[in-house]
């Protein structure tokens, strides 16, 4: 039984236009799946659908089942908000591209992490403070960051703080939607290494969404290629880069290769 089972998921506009159609995939506990596609391919909507966070007006149909080990399976599609709140954080949680939108600008970073921990793990007082500080330490942030407001720290530190808040809830599934796109390359490398370590240490499953195959290849073994809301190809990263089957994948790979080769040519 997989941790996440998406079966024939369709997300449609109020007018009935499908933005994601008939999408099926599975993610076992502790597994890592990269979802790749260009803008408009439906990759971010899929992430939001798993969390039951689709924008107003969009409707999901099909099935999204979350089954944490030692817990009861839960159906996300059509679940009432109360049920979804119970799942978010505890079972599945997410970090997004723009960490400044994920953090409340008026709340100190430590309090935000603390609030997430208290809500999902029910800790109070000293235990809560300790959990918050250890969450910061886990993502390599100094404990002084706890007293800072989001705008007082760099983009990379904000993203680390967002990851700390997400991971401190001890979810079984972490969804990362373009978490490094807004970051500089050196910071991107650090954040990817951090995610890699956290996911491995905690045995979390990772759903990593990106438009960049090279980034995905750093963190996921398997990849799902989306185009216009449908899955066009899936397999291990190594297989996909060796023998892409679908034209969309081939075009994606060719572009990535072209950029990659540019760096190679300049080497002596």
């Amino acid at each position: 039984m997989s941790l996440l089972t998406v079966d024939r998921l369709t997300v449609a506009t109020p007018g009935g236009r499908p933005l994601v159609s008939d999408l099926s995939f599975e993610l076992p506990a502790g597994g890592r799946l990269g979802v790749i596609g260009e803008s408009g391919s439906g990759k971010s909507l899929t992430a939001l659908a798993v969390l039951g966070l689709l924008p107003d007006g969009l409707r999901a149909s099909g099935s999204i089942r979350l089954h944490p080990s030692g817990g009861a399976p839960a159906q996300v599609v059509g679940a009432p908000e109360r049920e979804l709140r119970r799942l978010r954080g505890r079972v599945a949680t997410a970090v997004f591209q723009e960490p400044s939108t994920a953090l409340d600008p008026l709340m100190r970073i430590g309090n935000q992490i603390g609030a997430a921990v208290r809500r999902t793990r029910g800790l109070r007082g000293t235990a809560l403070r300790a959990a918050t500080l250890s969450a910061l330490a886990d993502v390599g942030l100094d404990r002084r960051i706890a007293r800072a407001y989001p705008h007082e720290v760099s983009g990379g530190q904000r993203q680390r703080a967002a990851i700390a808040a997400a991971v401190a809830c001890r979810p079984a599934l972490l969804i990362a939607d373009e978490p490094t796109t807004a970051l500089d390359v050196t910071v991107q490398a650090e954040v990817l290494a951090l995610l890699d370590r956290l996911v491995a240490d905690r045995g979390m499953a990772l759903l990593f969404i990106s438009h960049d195959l090279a980034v995905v290849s750093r963190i996921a073994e398997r990849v799902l290629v989306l185009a216009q809301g449908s899955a066009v190809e899936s397999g291990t990263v190594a297989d996909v880069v060796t023998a892409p089957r679908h034209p969309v994948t081939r075009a994606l790979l060719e572009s990535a290769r072209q950029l990659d080769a540019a760096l190679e040519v300049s080497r002596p």
Partner: protein
Amino acid sequence: MILEAREIGFAYPRGRTVLDGVSVGVTAGRGVALVGESGAGKTTLLRILLGLLRPTSGEVRFDGEPLRLGDRALMRRFRRDAQTVFQDPYSSLDPRQRVARIVSEPLRSLGLDAAPERVAEALREVGLPEDVAGRYPHEFSGGQRQRIAIARAIVCRPRLLLADEPVSALDVTTRVRVVDLLAELRETRGLTVVMVTHDLAVAALLCQETVVLSAGRVVEQGDTAGVLGSPTQPYTRRLLASVPRLPAPHPAGAPVEPNSE
């Protein structure tokens, strides 16, 4: 040398120093990439080179002559020769103007012949059909908008294109297509591209020279092949090492692993 920055310093009043003693030269036909991380001062340097900001110290020289922002005749000549493209394809086109009006703006503002044929020609050169002229920016995708912005930049036949992260906001495939377009314009129009970018691959594809900036200073500069191929500075090496690379394909003929899960 078409454009030269000499010992440029820039600081905000009572603020931190953004640039300190930066010298960069642009010769015809040799594109320059300004690379570095956010906060390095790349964009500020580009705005100074564009004559949009006055440096606190040092000077910008255009065709060997100091660029005096108050000298109207000189600035008109400079504007005609140095155009720009921005990162955000959404903010860079006025949503209330039709494409024809957007693209012809440099011609109108510089008092040049703004005949529709010139707009059509520029649109053709960036690979857009002529009938886009009557439409509004919101009808286009990010990549198409960036092409419209490039058409606006080349319509007055400038020698220089000073671009700020022109492909960073685009998808990988679109990014490669726009890079190809810029490379083509470099050849057909003799356009020299000066580009701020954090993407080293794009720098390598488009510019012969690379200037690495960090914290407002030049760390390393020279031939792109040399700077990116055999960097001498630890900072440049770290930058290069951080770029995520595609994994190599399986060796030819090797059996493809079965999909096991």
